[in-house]
């Protein structure tokens, strides 16, 4: 959404990916968010993930709703088509986009206001139809653009900048997605790029709805003491349960893992995510146990991060709809229109 052109400086030494593109080819316009905003870190993680995955930018469509987070698609992948929808309604646009052209990689960036209040219904139903997209919630607990009201993800007892205390229960997209049958549920922190980049890569490759809830502090309205969405709080109370390393197809798993620690998950395109358990008790394939783990830690004030649940077997919207491999928008008209003979034959039904 920026109107400041960002100069493209390509150093000779800049590394190129398999397509011969540099990371500059995956960047977008200059951010107009506040200095230090967590969202900008997420943007740079997205840029890096797409660059490293060697995805041609024109095969990506980026979407968002309304809010600070929803401005960010203008800051990455400027060679991709973008769609800035109305507030809370990006999932429906993504649904239609996928229905028409399933070959595109869809990445949606939303916020806690956009997804958990006005857009809770659409978020929930995109999850339900296992829409094939990566859906990132940049979660900061406040409405930034309207200057600091609590959002639905604000924790009980958290204090607003002006002193008001939130007494309503938060809506946690991760727990919601776990309970609702989400097939890829992850949580991360904008300040942890090591965790975030492989997670985004895995989310892009996941066939189905890939949710990443990213705690992304609002430096202007929610980074003070008594906020549970501040940098300081996050660094102290966020605990990874699982580390995920993304391994592209045809590449060997090079990292050395201890016995029993590594758990490779095969993705649809042949790539793998190698999960490393940090906690012995965590099981990324057991929805109930994973949810219990997250909840019990949450009661202790600890936020569990990582790729928390994954299921590659569930069909996505296209699997359920039995649509062809080719995008529906590209099916020739001749195959779609039954023609005059069929029409003549149909008339008898109506006599």
């Amino acid at each position, binding site marked *: 959404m920026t109107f400041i052109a960002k100069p493209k400086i390509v150093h000779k030494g800049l590394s190129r990916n398999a397509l011969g593109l540099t990371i500059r080819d995956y960047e977008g316009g200059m951010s107009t968010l506040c200095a230090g905003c967590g969202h900008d870190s997420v943007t740079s993680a997205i840029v890096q993930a797409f660059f490293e995955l060697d995805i041609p930018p024109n095969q990506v469509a980026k979407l968002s709703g309304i809010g600070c987070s929803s401005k960010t698609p203008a800051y990455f992948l400027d060679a991709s088509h973008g769609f800035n929808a109305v507030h809370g309604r990006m999932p429906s646009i993504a649904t239609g986009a996928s229905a028409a052209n399933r070959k595109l990689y869809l990445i949606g960036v939303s916020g806690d206001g956009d997804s958990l209040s006005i857009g809770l219904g659409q978020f929930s139903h995109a999850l339900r139809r296992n829409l094939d997209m990566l859906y990132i919630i940049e979660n900061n607990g406040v409405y930034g653009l309207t200057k600091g009201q609590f959002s639905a993800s604000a924790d009980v007892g958290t204090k607003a900048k002006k002193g008001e205390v939130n007494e309503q229960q938060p809506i946690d997209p991760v727990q919601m997605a776990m309970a609702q049958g989400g097939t890829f549920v992850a949580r991360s922190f904008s300040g942890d790029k090591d965790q975030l980049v492989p997670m985004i890569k895995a989310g892009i490759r996941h066939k189905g709805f890939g949710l990443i809830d990213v705690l992304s502090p609002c430096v202007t309205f929610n980074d003070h003491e008594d906020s549970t969405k501040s940098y300081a709080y996050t660094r102290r109370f966020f605990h990874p349960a699982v580390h995920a390393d993304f391994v592209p197809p045809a590449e060997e798993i090079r990292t050395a893992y201890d016995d029993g620690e590594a758990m490779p998950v095969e993705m649809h395109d042949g790539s793998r995510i190698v999960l490393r358990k940090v906690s012995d008790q965590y099981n990324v394939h057991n929805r109930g146990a994973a949810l219990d783990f997250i909840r019990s830690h949450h009661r202790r004030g600890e936020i569990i991060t990582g790729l928390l649940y994954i299921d590659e077997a569930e069909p996505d919207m296209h699997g359920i709809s039995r649509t062809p491999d080719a995008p529906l928008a590209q*099916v020739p008209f001749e195959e779609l229109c039954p023609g005059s003979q069929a029409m003549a034959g149909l*008339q008898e039904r109506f006599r």
Partner: protein
Amino acid sequence: MSAKSRINASRANDFVIRLANVNGTGSASANGLLMKTIFRMGVPVMGKNFFPSNIQGLPTWYEIRVTRDHHLARSGEIDIMVAMNAETYQQDLKSLSPGGVFLYDSTWPRHSVVNRQDVTILGVPLAKMCNEHFTNARARILMKNMAYVGALASLLELDREIIEDAVHRTFASKQPLLQANMDAIELGANYASEHFDCPLPTRVEPMNETAGKIMIDGNTASALGCLFAGATVGAWYPITPSTSLMDAFKSFCERYRVDRDTGTRNYCIVQAEDELAAIGIVLGATWNGARAFTPTSGPGLSLMSEFIGYAYFAELPAVLFDVQRVGPSTGMPTRTQQADILSAAYASHGDTRHVLLFPANPNECFELSVEAFDLADRLQTPVIVLLDLDIGMNDWMCDDLEWDDSYRPDRGKVLGADELESIESFYRYLDVDGDGIPYRTYPGVGRKGAYFVRGSGHNKYGGYTEDADEYQEVVDRLVRKWETAATLVPAPVVQRRKSAEWGIVSVGSCDYAVAEAVEVLARRGIHLSYMRVKAFPFSEAVTEFLHQHKRIFVVEQNRDAQLKSLLTLETDYPKERMESILHYSGLPIDRRCVVEAIEASVARGEAA
């Protein structure tokens, strides 16, 4: 006396039957059978269903007009009442025209209720006969319907072979049911011929007036339009009275769009969580180059308004079907009205105006739904097809639907990868051709065609803006596009009467009632020209017609004269010279109300 004039002198093939039933008792199929029989006897017929928003137990009526002269609107008269609902006996008796026939179930005689002297009362002990003949409790209820069809077969001299053929077709695979239905028809037919002087003067005589005709509802015809126009994505939220449109689309797709070998489907229907999502899905799909549509009704249109404004401003095609029902609010979901004209025309906040198409019969539902996709793609804007419950859900007699194989979709100004290569630069909202319509690209086409779709302020290059001049330049260009739209939409249908100084303007499902009223009034010496608008924006022909007449009657089915308001706002014809004739009870408009209103106006001297 020739055969034709003898028929004309009689009431044969020119009368109305109304059947009063309780919903959920199986009467719908019996009434449909009755209407189909008359149609298959070659006699033009109209059928209208007045049903409650309920599954079982409430009053429901079905009205059949047998009309040798092809008058396919309600006449306003009722000649035969088949009263099967004791709860509404009094009301039903009262609504019968003088000289009419009241047929009721005399198992329980109601001498005190059924007491009009100017009508003929016929009692048929339907329940008694069915109870004696059938043992099964459900059959005893269901077969009463077929028994009254039998009684009517004798009274109206219906072709028994045609009835029995239809029953055979329906119950071919259910032998016991077939026999039961046949028995019930026999019971009623025999009782009537033994006890009454059959046939009645209001009877059905075979004609040859339905060859090349079909009976189809507008929702089904619209669904066929979507199928033939090549729509691949349909998104919806179930709402009466539009639901059968998507149901029909789905069943046609299952027949014509499934690959026999692989089972893959060249369509994607999404039953959305609500109408806000349904329209969002349509926009996401058209942004990516698919033809997409959503059927809805008034409440859905209200919910869609935000995205409709978005599509207007960001310039995305979309086809919406608003099958109008009675408002405001939940209103009466199973009754008809044309009360969304203004809310559709100006849906959404800010300065917005939308292309509307108004089909008047199932043929036009089919044709205009195809045209809606072409216009939406050509103009890159939402096109709303305004049906109503009467056209959408009732079976209308109309010409066979035909398809021209030379049709190719007009996808409008879309630049592909090759075209992008050949131009220096692409900007999304530039008016290159001077018609107000810019060029667009589909996602996936490459860096040169990439742009950001947004509902926020943008300049002609597609960039975000809050600059006053840049913003205004874009919205002014949208006005040019609107002017182009007025030249592309279908022209009105005009019947000009020589030297007529008064005109009638109407829209959609009012058409048959108005056309018949014009004939009736002409016979009484009141000559009017008639224009039916088919689209908004109004083309020049609309304004021209208005100005050719000193006075204009605007006939429409809503309380607030919405079409008249739109004509007032969007043409320069003086408001004082327009007079409204409004019908908004929720039942389809009838000829009588139009005739009476104009005669009254003439009598007052206002029109003269």
